[in-house]
């Protein structure tokens, strides 16, 4: 069990679904070396099947008794979606009439396949966005499922990481995670996941997804730090709730539920008073029964502001400046590193070199003559060693 716990709060009322977080994460961590299909951060439209497709029905997590439940491993093509390219070269380098823009594979799913689809009929159709990262759970399903005990939760901040030396690619973690936020890297045959940008965190910077967020919806801090905005949102005002708490893993990413939905219209196109377009049952399914009180609090505090009164909660959610939204502690990590006798680049000790390998490494061909991945340096070394024998 962790001594401290980092947490993230995302205010769903302000998420505009721009995917800047997704891109920030992808360019930082997952655009290379077998991670191309992975989205450690994705933004999905709800109601919807999400990414991977129907992850909420894919099992994992714990039952009422606290026992790990069985789960399935999503399929690359059907559930995650194979990354594809377009024939830009053909179109731009030859007479445009000869070619139409087309993908180089026939995709059937992708990370934003059902984006903005939502549910319901006009004019009462609705949807909202949920950005998702690893929840760095207090009782992680992935960690529990690993027969190798290769997944660990850092004592200093509760970040959940895979020890790539121990991982043998058995993939029980993927079945065990009810959020399907741990992925199999087929190139190296090991599991990988969101690392909460811990090399940034240790330098006092928030994760890339949070830092880049255009809508300023994300708050990052320690849950035991009563001065932090995450503490206030989660514990003081209780307006930030975990996603699918019924999965039993005690997530540490919290969401301020959407209350700012447009009104519901009657047959004549007139707004119906006191009617929510987003059904409360759906919000309750996602965020648990506490969602009622959370929404009540949010509405009360909004009303205060409308009357011109003070509201600390509203001030927090307006997200005036990053310094308050992200309360990290560079000195705290410096102290831990000093205690362990680590210096400088040794901070990266736990991170496999694969994480910091540059994006410009040479491309290699896959077994069927297709270019899949960039060279994986550790593997190359392995092959070299074999040749020596």
């Amino acid at each position, binding site marked *: 069990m962790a001594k401290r716990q980092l947490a993230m709060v995302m205010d769903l009322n302000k998420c505009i679904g721009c995917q800047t977080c997704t891109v920030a994460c992808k360019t930082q961590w997952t655009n290379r070396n077998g991670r191309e299909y992975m989205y450690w951060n994705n933004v999905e439209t709800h109601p919807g099947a999400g990414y991977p497709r129907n992850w909420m029905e894919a099992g994992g997590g714990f039952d009422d008794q606290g*026992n790990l439940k069985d789960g399935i491993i999503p*399929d690359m093509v059907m559930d995650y979606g194979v990354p594809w390219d377009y024939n830009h070269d053909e179109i731009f380098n030859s007479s445009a009439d000869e070619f139409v823009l087309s993908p180089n594979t026939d995709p059937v799913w992708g990370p934003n396949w059902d984006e903005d689809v939502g549910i319901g009929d006009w004019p009462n159709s609705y949807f909202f966005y949920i950005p998702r990262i690893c929840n760095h759970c207090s009782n992680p399903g992935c960690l529990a499922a690993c027969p190798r005990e290769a997944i660990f939760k850092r004592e200093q901040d509760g970040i959940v990481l895979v020890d790539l030396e121990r991982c043998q690619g058995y993939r029980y973690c993927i079945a065990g995670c009810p959020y399907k936020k741990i992925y199999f890297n087929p190139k190296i*045959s090991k599991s990988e996941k969101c690392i909460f940008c811990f090399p940034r965190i240790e330098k006092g910077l928030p994760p890339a997804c949070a830092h880049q967020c255009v809508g300023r919806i994300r708050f990052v801090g320690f849950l035991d730090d009563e001065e932090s905005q995450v503490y206030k949102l989660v514990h003081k005002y209780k307006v930030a709730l975990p996603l699918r708490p019924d999965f039993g893993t005690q997530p540490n990413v919290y969401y301020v539920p959407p209350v700012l939905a447009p009104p519901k219209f009657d047959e004549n196109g007139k707004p119906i008073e006191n009617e929510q377009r987003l059904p409360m049952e759906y919000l309750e399914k996602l965020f648990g029964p506490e969602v009622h009180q959370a929404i009540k609090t949010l509405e009360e505090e909004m009303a205060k502001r409308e009357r011109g009164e003070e509201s600390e909660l509203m001030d927090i959610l307006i997200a005036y400046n990053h310094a308050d939204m992200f309360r990290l502690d560079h000195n705290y990590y410096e102290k831990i590193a000093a205690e362990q006798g680590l210096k400088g680049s040794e901070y990266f000790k736990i991170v496999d070199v694969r994480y910091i390998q540059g994006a410009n490494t040479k491309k290699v061909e896959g077994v069927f003559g297709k270019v899949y991945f960039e060279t994986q340096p550790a593997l190359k070394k392995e092959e070299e060693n074999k040749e020596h024998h």
Partner: protein
Amino acid sequence: MKKTLKAAVIGVTAFFVSANATTDGFFKYEVIDALQINEEISTNPNNPLWEKAKSTEVTLYPQVSVRLNDKKANELIPKKEAVKAQVKAIYNDKNIAVYIKWKDNTPSVQPPFTTNQFADGVSIEFPNKFGKGITLPYVGMGDENHPVTVYLQKNVAGRDYQKVFVSKGFGSLTEVDTKNVDIVMTYDEKNKEWTAVFKRPLTDEYTDLKAGLVPIAFAVWDGNQYERDGNKSLSRWKFIRLNKFELDKDYVEYVSWGVPYVDWPEKGEDIGDPENGKKLFQQNGCAACHRAAEFQTAPLGMAPDLSDIGGIANAIYLKESIINPNDVIIRNLNINRHYMKTNPDRFKAYPNNSMYEWYIKTDGKKQSKMPAFTHLQEQDINDLVAYLKTLVDWKNFK
């Protein structure tokens, strides 16, 4: 001079052993006669040398002692068939090679760009220490008192996936150097059969196989049935007979105790009465923690499931487990799989449920939670073992 003397000694030992009725079956069905040669050993399974080596049939049973959490894989387990493998061995002055051939209608390669497809694979293991006075390890990759060396070959696209591990039970595999080890695995499309040959030095850093009787166990993985890791089929400890080295009669007596086994074509006299053994199983409360056959009420994961223990455990191992459970303490499957829904910490983390731990620690020493049933009469223990030996049914696996 010396050589002749040694040969004579072996002759005497062999005579002694064959004079014993129970060991006859043991040597016939549990022992792989290794062929001694002078030339280099070929890892090519089609090399004519392998035709000269005697073949022994080994049965591998689905692993159901511990239950993993892959829904699709678990759904397939009750429908699985035991795997029949043909096993041979050859040795010379320096090396030993083990050949294994088994039927698999669906050759599976782990492809380079999928998430949910698995490789066919095969492995063999040797106890790091064995011989007179040394008890057999737990067959599922050893235990803390009995490290084993495991050789693994998987069929992964784009690379030759060969690994050697030293292991002390589930989750404890440590990769070691593969130099001096050669493994070849080939598929015969016509006969729908895999053949693998493992070649290693007779003696290495971890094990010395220069002995008359060398314990060995086998495992195979069928990628098509989502098999990997503990989700596999495995044999009980079998034994390779190296004629060049002396046969220790005490060790033969020890490892052959309690034969016959359920998969022998001819059985003969058993050590006890399985009917009475079943009664004793009930009377002694075994089913409170263990699942087996019709006894399915123990909580999942409370203790090893014994449903096919008669196929994968040696009789002497079963006896030792009953009277001296502390000798082979099996490492728990990840204890975080079960938590207690009380006393969460300030970050809402629930503590592990110690009910599911298989051992307790006193003064840093592990002690099995299973009590030693030393109070039982010798015949009762034999009856219990006779009953456990009949358990080869995994159709109730849930």
